[in-house]
């Protein structure tokens, strides 16, 4: 769509700009302050340059947390995006069934994150949880409190349970926005279900999919509350993801300098990757339109 050049549009954006600037720029400046200085009190502070960054980057614990974080986000995107698209396509289009399916689908999203953690902490337990009990009843030894693999699986399944509905709802809204005429035209042309999906539904879902991938990437990359409640980062360090590592240092040890340095690195990683995703996906979309 051709857009009109009009700088007065800034007035429409201004309220958003002000609100987000207040709640984002001021905190960010504080973080930068902590990252480059050793602060004992507002009057008593020393410039340390990149010292915090150097010590933090040489830390094996950070490397481990970083690798686990990347593997986790990768697995999550790999499972949730295709599953979300498939489920959105399987959802009934109209009638009471559609309403019911939507309401059910949205349920996990409305549960506070600590409660999600609690639900799975109990549900996956072998003694008082239905899930853990079922898996063990099938003859598979399973105990997420002392087996790293089981802990990982629990966290991944919990995240799939918790967040796939977000992908489904976004894709569903995108699908419903496709005018019936498109499907009628496809039917007249005798297009197969796959062709309808590939050339009508997928391109039309481009916008919502972009949002879904970005949201899922960023939120899975910052995951904190749920694994913290379920495993506390254990067994050992098996499920210590980046934000759990960060919180340990910031709140647990009150090392604000290194913590701020880690957050800046953290922030830059997400920024870079989101930028790449954003560009790749917008380009893919324009290719399809042509």
């Amino acid at each position, binding site marked *: 769509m051709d857009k*009109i*050049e*009009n*700088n*007065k*549009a*800034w007035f*429409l*954006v201004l*309220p*958003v*700009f002000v*609100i*987000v600037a207040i*709640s984002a720029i*001021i*905190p*960010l400046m*504080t*973080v930068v302050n902590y990252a480059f200085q050793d602060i004992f009190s507002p009057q008593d502070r020393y410039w340390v340059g990149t010292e915090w960054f150097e010590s933090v980057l040489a830390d094996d614990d950070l490397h481990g947390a970083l690798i686990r974080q990347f593997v986790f986000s990768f697995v999550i995107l790999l499972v949730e995006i295709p599953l979300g698209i*498939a489920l959105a396509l*399987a959802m009934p289009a109209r009638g009471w069934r*559609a309403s019911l*399916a*939507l*309401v*059910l689908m949205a*349920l*996990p999203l*409305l*549960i*506070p*994150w*600590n*409660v999600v953690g*609690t*639900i799975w902490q*109990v549900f996956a337990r072998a*003694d*008082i949880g*239905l*899930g853990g009990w079922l898996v063990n009843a099938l003859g598979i030894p399973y105990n997420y409190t002392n087996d790293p693999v089981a802990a990982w699986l629990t966290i991944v399944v919990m995240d799939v*349970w918790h967040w796939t*509905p977000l992908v489904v709802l976004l894709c*569903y*809204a995108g699908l*419903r*926005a496709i*005018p019936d005429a498109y499907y009628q035209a496809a039917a007249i042309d005798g297009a197969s279900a796959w062709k309808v999906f590939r050339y009508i539904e997928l391109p039309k879902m481009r916008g919502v999919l972009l*949002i879904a991938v*970005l*949201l899922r990437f*960023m939120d899975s990359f*910052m995951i904190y509350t749920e694994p913290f409640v379920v495993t506390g980062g254990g067994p050992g360090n098996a499920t210590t993801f980046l934000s759990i590592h960060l919180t340990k240092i910031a*709140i647990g040890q009150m090392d604000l300098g290194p*913590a701020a340095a880690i*957050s800046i690195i953290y*922030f830059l990683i997400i920024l870079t990757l989101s*930028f790449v995703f*954003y560009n790749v996906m917008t380009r893919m979309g324009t290719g399809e339109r042509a």
Partner: protein
Amino acid sequence: MKGRSVALIIYFVFLLLPIYWLVNMSLKTNQEILSGLTLFPREPTLANFQTILTDPSWYMGYVNSLIYVVMNTVISLSVALPAAYAFSRFRFIGDKHVFFWLLTNRMAPPAVFLLPFFQLYQALGLFDTHIAVALAHCLFNVPLAVWILEGFMSGVPKEIDETAYIDGYSFPRFFVRIFLPLIKAGIGVTAFFCFMFSWVELLLARTLTATNAKPIASTMTRTVSAAGMDWGLLAAAGVLTIVPGALVIWFVRNYMAKGFALGRV
């Protein structure tokens, strides 16, 4: 078509089992929960719910949460609607950069923002008020609202705007009377997401409040005591946290299901 429905039903079983377990636990006594696995409560009891609904220190948590969540949804929508329109219709200096910058605000790990937020709201005298939490949640909800709304607005043909202006509509009148009804679905979905993200957020809400505006998610941590977890009470509180959200999605479902009225305009 058959296979699709079966897959969907299997997924819903997977989705509902953990929730069923929560409801199941909320109707049990603590002794029953810890004494072994029972698929149904042997002696169903509403005692857990009764504790929550009669004790102000419990139910005020829900009221507080609802107040700041509604505030946040209203603020987010009212600032995001004009901005999203600007992004979807006009080119202006720095538009792409601002758009992406907005999104970067969703990326900051909350853990490190706790201290700065705390200092900021303390200095403004807003600590432990509902508006403080509502404003803090704007950090991630406003960018999200702009993004989702922009997507929906871009789907509305620009000829509609032009026709309206030719017919003599002023911008505010056009925006409220013609444009907003066209993107009802988008507004519904956006309001739902704002509500949702604000409702489930715990870290910021807990840090910015002490007693007057204490959210339910934070009240729930009380169930951990020296005597161990009060699983039944925790489960009951958890069940109640699902209710307001389920009501909201029930109202939104029609907007989502109807989709765009594009073909009929």
